[in-house]
């Protein structure tokens, strides 16, 4: 029994740590496939985490909390959309603004909720979690959002490669001018993709504050939004690779906890550097082959679209 328990615990912890990365990453993947680069993932996740937490505390319902987080993320994404799609502001600068605003705004609205205790998703679903046998406990920790994150790659893959809407999405990300000339509404498709990205980021943030941690503190996303962005580059915009990358980073993230659990004496600050260093390493690995990156990147990524009639 005991020899099964550690590997199971590691798998479960990895899946849970990968969940926010998967959710936010697939949101951004769809956004970028439409040709829009939204660097505001971190900000949208934070706002999602704060609003998800507040809505849950206010309503007593985790479901309402998750929904509120998705709406909050999408609302911030809408601001991004209006600025970059309708007003054609610089996507990089606007994305940075989104993150800076998200950090400040989430801290401001969430200030009264810092440190407030909350049961969390697993406890809400399984009130007897704490008393359950250890192995069962691990399975209970695999909450519905983790399962959603496990299914999402298949769903997005199917959508992108097997449906007509997915074909149109890829087309818009490849060349907005051609798509426009063929009569597709580039802006509508891009708005939808940006909103989806925002909602998924919001959900990812709420997963952190409602299930993973579960509590709200300032800046609690701690760079996961940026890691999700890096993972999309790493995946070369392919769902299977993104899913794999998220799991890999889930594993890296929990390394520090595992090391602590195993009593390895590495200073926590140094262990906390791991995910960031790994992100840099992964980016370097994937970017080295410039041709491959160019071949796979949506050709219109980051370019503003102006319907020149």
């Amino acid at each position, binding site marked *: 029994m005991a020899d099964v328990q550690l590997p199971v615990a590691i798998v479960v912890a990895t899946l849970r740590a990968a969940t926010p990365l998967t959710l936010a990453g697939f949101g951004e993947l769809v956004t970028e496939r439409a040709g829009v680069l939204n660097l505001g993932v971190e900000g949208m996740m934070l706002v999602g985490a704060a609003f998800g937490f507040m809505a849950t505390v206010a309503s007593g319902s985790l479901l309402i909390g998750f929904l509120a987080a998705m709406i909050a993320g999408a609302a911030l994404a809408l601001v991004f959309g209006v600025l970059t799609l309708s007003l*054609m502001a610089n996507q990089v600068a606007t994305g940075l603004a989104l993150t800076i605003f998200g950090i400040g705004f989430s801290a401001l609205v969430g200030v009264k909720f810092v440190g407030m205790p909350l049961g969390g998703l697993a406890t809400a679903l399984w009130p007897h979690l704490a008393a359950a046998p250890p192995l069962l406990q691990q399975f209970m920790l695999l909450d519905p959002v983790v399962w959603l994150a496990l299914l999402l790659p298949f769903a997005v893959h199917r959508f992108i490669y097997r449906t007509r809407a997915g074909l149109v999405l890829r087309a818009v990300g490849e060349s907005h001018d051609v798509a426009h000339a063929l009569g597709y509404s580039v802006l509508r498709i891009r708005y939808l993709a940006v909103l989806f990205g925002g909602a998924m980021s919001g959900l990812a943030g709420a997963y952190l504050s409602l299930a993973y941690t579960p509590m709200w503190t300032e800046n609690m996303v701690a760079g996961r939004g940026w890691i999700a962005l890096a993972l999309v580059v790493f995946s070369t915009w392919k769902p299977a690779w993104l899913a794999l990358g998220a799991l890999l980073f889930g594993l890296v993230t929990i390394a520090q906890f595992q090391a602590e659990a195993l009593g390895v004496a590495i200073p926590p600050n*140094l262990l906390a550097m791991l995910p960031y260093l790994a992100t840099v390493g992964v980016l370097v690995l994937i970017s080295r082959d*410039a041709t491959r990156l160019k071949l796979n990147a949506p050709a219109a990524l980051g370019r503003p679209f102006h319907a020149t009639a």
Partner: protein
Amino acid sequence: MVWLSPVLAALLSVIGVTLLFAALGRDPVEALATLFVTPLASIDGLTELGLKATPLLLCAIGIAIGVRADVWNIGAEGQFTLGAIVGSAVALGWGGGGHWWVILATLFAGIAGGMAWAAVPALLRTRFNAHEILTTLMLSYVAIQLLGYLVHGPWKDPEGYSFPQTRQFAPDAMLPLLLEGTRLHIGALFALAAVPLGSVLLGRTLVGFRIRTVGAAPAAARYAGFSRNATVWVCLLLSGGLAGLAGICEIAGGNGQLTPLISPGYGFAAIIVAFLGRLNPVGILFASLLMALLYLGGEGLQVSMQMPIAVTGTVQGMLLFFLLAADVLINYRVRLLPARRAGVVTDG
């Protein structure tokens, strides 16, 4: 025309802040006064303004020069931190002997630390094609953890009552004050000097012309023979060095010791300052003062109205949003006509 959108953005932000305070159930008039007026009402407040504007100005000029070349150094926070760390290493190691050169060595070490931290993304960009946006940012997180490790671990002051902080710098490693009785140090002069230097570099030298060409039209730069890689190096080393200088000035001109938290996000706020100042050193001078005012006012709100310090961050983000929107709205009217005309000319 160029300055219309920052002014408009500032005004819109004031309206936004008013609404925000009203929504939070606070008296907007009192809050606005605390935020924008009180800090300017005393000599003390004004010198504090200069003190806070110093790191913002240094970091923002570097960031702006980079963005002009389409090099996005958004990790000034990390370079700031490394500047503080490396500078402190020199100050703690060689200080105390009363030598005149210790402060100079400390400052240069700070610059070198910032440059070295920026050299990593420069190398990764030019050698491995890894985009600097993500690498500079990731390295900021690493730098902050590194600082945490040092002050909790090897550099911890044994007599510091187990607080995570280093020993105090000796007096010979401290920056002289500019005004006795205030906290304003001569780092402010370095920042002021960076304004004309940055302006001349961008506007009147071939290096600046290369930077602007690489940013405005990369294909034209390649055609002209301006190396993109060299520009990436110049921009990142320059902005890293300026951020490193800001970092060590903050320590050597301030508390004289490292703690886990040495910056309230100066490196990130400087991105906003750079844009607010139109990526132009003179404009950045004014933008840094405005941003410093926000920091001071935010602290004032915290003290006198028990408002969370996060107000500052929210207003900063708002300011950048409004700036981008105002920019577009203003440019729209100006640019739409020529753009259309050009469309007809290339028309078959």
